[in-house]
């Protein structure tokens, strides 16, 4: 296993999207507020389909939301 991990910019994207709340984003992609919070904190990696849905909400590409970072 590499030391890489999945990080994301959801918090920043929410801020730039009129300070969208976690609950609002969750409603739009079919997740609970707690699951959005878990994704933001790196405690849960969403499915590929959900990752695309999240990117779609902000009108950006998948790579602009999720990054595979580390060594």
């Amino acid at each position, binding site marked *: 296993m590499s030391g890489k*991990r*999945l990080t994301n910019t959801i918090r920043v994207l929410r801020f730039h999207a009129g300070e969208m709340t976690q609950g609002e984003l*969750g409603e739009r992609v*079919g*997740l*609970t*507020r*707690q*699951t959005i919070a*878990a994704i933001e*904190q*790196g*405690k*849960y*990696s*969403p*499915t590929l389909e*959900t990752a695309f849905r999240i990117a779609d909400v902000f009108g950006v590409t998948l790579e602009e939301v999720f990054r595979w970072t580390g060594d």
Partner: protein
Amino acid sequence: MSFQEKSRWIALTANLIVWGWYFVTVAGLLAAGAPDERGLLGLLVPVIIGITIINIIGHIIVAALKPSEARTELDEREKAIARRAAAAGYHILCLGILIALGSTLYYWSAFVAVNAVMLAFILAECVRYSIEILSFRRGLA
């Protein structure tokens, strides 16, 4: 705390209180001598009623406090947590039933055998709820 996590807390608490009372009572009956198998049904009735009442009242209170989050359908993270917890609970259940069956080779009693299997089932359920709660807190990544 999500509605699903609160729901698991309610279920775990109900199981620990009601089944705890049941198994303490059964242990008392065993210690007092040959228990009456027919009395088992009499003990199970208050258990079923107690579990049902605690669960219904608990869920009504939790839903009334935050109606917007009172959802019964699970999202993908909650489903993943449920799968992980069910797998762990299944292993506990298998182990418990094997121990219960194995113990009947040395000491046969319908009363003990039935209660040992029930204990395995309740332990498996408590482990399942506990792992779900832990996973809600610590995450899955």
